[in-house]
């Protein structure tokens, strides 16, 4: 049986067909795999940041509201990262002996840049807007996870379209009690343009 197979393989047509089939199988596996990849692969991404900023301390223990620093979320598409000066608003007097705060202060004094590592990233053809979500009362934690418990910020939810659509089709679990919203837009232009 195996011998017959080798025999047949001498024919160049059969060879091409076999090779093509093998390539196709791999492609299909990769393709299907990509579109069905589980959430947990994207989760837990937690790069080392230039300053070991702890959300657990600031948002958890100190209970500073999210919008205090990420004030863009109500006014802009991007929630934004606070400027170094905003950090220095407190840290001019708070914990000035910490080497990290001294690093922060040095950046602020020199006018240099503080480059944080991006954790949540969307492809360039996705135009997510924080405003309608925040205004509808969706808690930041719905997508960003229990930030107030994270010493190092990490990704909680894969930001794939399936997750967006699941919530847009039935947003009620994410909305505060009494919200009148029952559905969010599902047309392409809601996010792609």
């Amino acid at each position, binding site marked *: 049986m195996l011998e017959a197979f080798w025999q047949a393989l001498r024919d160049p047509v059969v060879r091409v067909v076999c090779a093509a089939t093998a390539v196709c199988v791999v492609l299909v*596996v*990769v*393709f*299907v*795999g*990509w579109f*069905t*990849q*589980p959430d947990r*692969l994207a989760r837990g*991404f937690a*790069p080392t940041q230039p300053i070991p900023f702890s959300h657990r301390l600031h948002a958890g223990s100190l209970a500073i509201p999210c919008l205090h620093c990420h004030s*863009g979320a*109500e*006014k*802009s*598409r*991007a929630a*934004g*990262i*606070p*400027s*170094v*000066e*905003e950090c220095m608003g407190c840290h001019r007097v708070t914990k000035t002996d910490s080497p990290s705060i001294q690093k922060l202060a040095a*950046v*602020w004094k020199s*006018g*240099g*840049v*503080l*480059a*944080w*590592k*991006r*954790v949540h*990233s969307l*492809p*360039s*053809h996705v*135009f997510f*807007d924080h*405003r*309608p979500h925040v*205004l509808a009362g969706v808690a930041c934690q719905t997508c960003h996870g229990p930030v107030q418990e994270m010493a190092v910020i990490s990704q909680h939810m894969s930001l794939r379209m399936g997750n967006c659509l699941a919530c847009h089709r039935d947003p009620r679990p994410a909305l505060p009690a009494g919200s009148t919203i029952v559905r969010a*837009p599902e*047309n*392409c*232009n*809601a996010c*792609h*343009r």
Partner: protein
Amino acid sequence: MSDPRFSRREFLGLIGSATFVAGCSKDRGEIVPFTKRPEGAKPGVADFYASTFQEGLCAYGVLVKTREGRPIHVQGNDRHPAFKSKTSPAAIADIMGLYDPDRLKHPLMDGHPADWSAVESKLVSSLKDQSVLLVTGALLSPARRALIMDLKKVLPGLRHVSWEPALGDGQTAALQDCYGSARRPRLRLERAKVIVALEADLLSGGRTEEIGGFASNRTERSMNRLYAFEGSVSLTGANADVRVAWRPSRAAALGFALARELHQAGVPWPSGVDSSSLSDFSLEGLDSGLLRALVGDLKKSRNQAVVVAGPSLPPQAHAAAFLLNAMLGAEGHTVDASSSVAEPLSGSDAVAQALREAQEGKFGAAIFWQVNPAYSFPDAKLWKAAVAAIPLKVRIGLHEDETAQDCELVLPEHHWLESWNDFETAEDLLSLQQPAVGSLYETKQAEDILLDILRGLGGGAPIDYRHYLMARWQREVQPSGSLVPFESFWSAALHDGVCQRKAEAKPPRRLNGSAVNRWAQVAAQSERPQWELLLSPSANLFDGRYANNGWLQELPDPVTKLSWGNAVSMSPTDASRLSLEDGQVVRLSASGREVELPVVVQPGQAPGVLSAALGYGRRTGSIAQGVGANLFPLWNAAPVAVKDAGRREVLAFMQRHHTLEGRDVVRSLAWPKGRLAPRKDLASLYEPRKFPKHKWVMAVDLSLCVGCQACVLACQSENNIPTVGKERVLKGREMHWMRVDRYYEGSPENPRILMQPMLCQQCDDAPCENVCPVAATNHSDEGLNEMAYNRCVGTRYCQNNCPYKVRRFNFFEYTAQTPASARLAFNPEVTVRPRGVMEKCTFCVQRIQEAKQAAKVRGRPLQDGDIEPACAAACPARAIVFGDLKDSTSRVSKLTRSERGYRVLEELGVKPSVTYLADLRNPPQADAS
């Protein structure tokens, strides 16, 4: 797999994603916040700065939209009283001038990079005690003028010539002679019922105010009547109710003959005009019925009429127009000189005179600022001789252009989006220019260079031009005795971009009758040459200053639809006599100079008239170089001879079919009685679509649209549309989401010309959607035909199935070919499309989304007018209206229900969302007397 943690599906997924993840870096880039956030700066939110854009004798108030500190779009300033939120196409496109990769990035001394201090110390030491020639463009700025006056105090040998090479000298000469002052009046076309244009293009793209005024009287309720007498075909002729192909050499005769006819119809002469000097003019070739109608219209409308002569005409034609306007009493009504200011502009003669003196060694140094005489001065020999005799030549400019190559010192200046200035186009109106971005390169504002010279030569000067400007404003602009602190006055003026002030009422100008008599005698003696060559600034490139702007090179000429080059237009009669056709190259020669360029056979062109656009044929600039032919050598040259050069050039027309073939794609009605044929309701096999909340639609009023193409550029800027170059335009692969189709109807000798903006019609039963194999284009519940780029696989079925031909395909990775600096102009709200992806007009969905969110943030529902797509915002005629059809009171709903409304190719049953309102024309009735 026995491992209970994995399902089969997950296993496959894991293998697939592992393959991908292995190849992908985990790094997702960086986020860099502001270190010190400027007050009011919100990442993701656009800021607008009021500023001013100057071109020639016009200063447009604009708003510059910036995102994260980068200017990305220019639109009109809504507080500007004349332009009213509209601006010129060049202002919109010149954002590319800011990001032009060819811009000079540091000073050059003898062709080598140098630093500013070395260059300026050399400059100051060489200028000291020298006689200096300073050639600039039109200044229009009181602060600039004051600065040059200050400079004269420390440099007594300074001679200043301000020169606009592409603007004719005829009007200035005639104004000086007939009114004793070169103050250019403002045309108030919104008050005009009858407009007579003699070779005057009142409706070309840059004439924003005139287009607005003209269009305000082109509705069912009130219609003006435009008579155009022209040799070439302009947008004015295309929109005229009566267009007569008329040779420009006879324009003056026509004007004076009309004045005589008007007098015979009972209108008195203005004082000092001698009727005997007007007896010789004949109106041969003009239909007598038309003449009767024209004279009747003028007589009836009186001060609601206006006669305008074009800048390319000689002074006698302007004098004739002045005479007619004086007889009609237009002064103070349709011709408003009450607050206009005189810009001391010298003609090319004055430049030639200065260059001749330079040749004799009269000048120790010369500074060329805003002008490029090595390209635009007609007499290249004189220029070469003059620069050889000037020891130090200085070029202050944006590029290392033709003139810079002849100069020892090349000083890069700021782009206008990086500069401070003020502009005065009327005594009662000042507009301010402020930087919308810090300087991108090691450049300086030109005025700061002059201030450095002033300081170096011992004059007192503030630390920079901004302070110079502010000091001048505090002294001269803020009303004396005002209780407002200057800082508040200044910041209010900067915020508004304009400052209106009281001007002393001037006595009306008086026409000097004897000057008119003299010009009439000149006109009576003028001959009719065999060929007349009309040269005008290009509708896109002006005098060549925008030649390195790809958007403007690719934007087709509004009439010929030729992109990437210029050509000489010739009448069909002449072309068939000389057996020439489109693309055949001819040699034009006059005064011993020759230019070779291809022919375009232009329906409607008067026989014997050749016309061509200036601004092409630049010798420098990576985009500008070698595109088209430079016609400045033939400026004011006569007589012109034409010879077949025996070769051909390929012309990149963006429209290849020019007639409607009897179909009613563009509908035109005779006002006031014309009506469209009643609409037939078409049966459809599809269920009607339901739109629960909004239904976005557009209305385009063809009666208002003049075809200036400002919309096309605004769309290009807003939607990150690439340019593709001549080669791909020839293959029909241009990327414009919006175009203006131009059709000829009737005889080629003088056809009717129709314009139609064409964009995605957002059909309810869109034929493109049905054929997409991957559902990349589908319908939203707000009536938009959406394009999901990330889904598109590039089959182009949709493009083939679109009856309007508005879908565009990215054959190449155009973004990769966009220089890094030009990518800064990208609108971050719109996806930059990669290769292999189809794209098309989205009705500016990013603006729809933004308006919705802004309304939500403010806690109020969307209102009519909240959303304005880029094309509608840019349209100087307000021909494009956008809105929600579900709101029955919205403007667009009313227009959609209009009796003039129709949909293009409606019979296909695709249910387009764009309603066109039929063009209205108001020709005189045949029996008018």
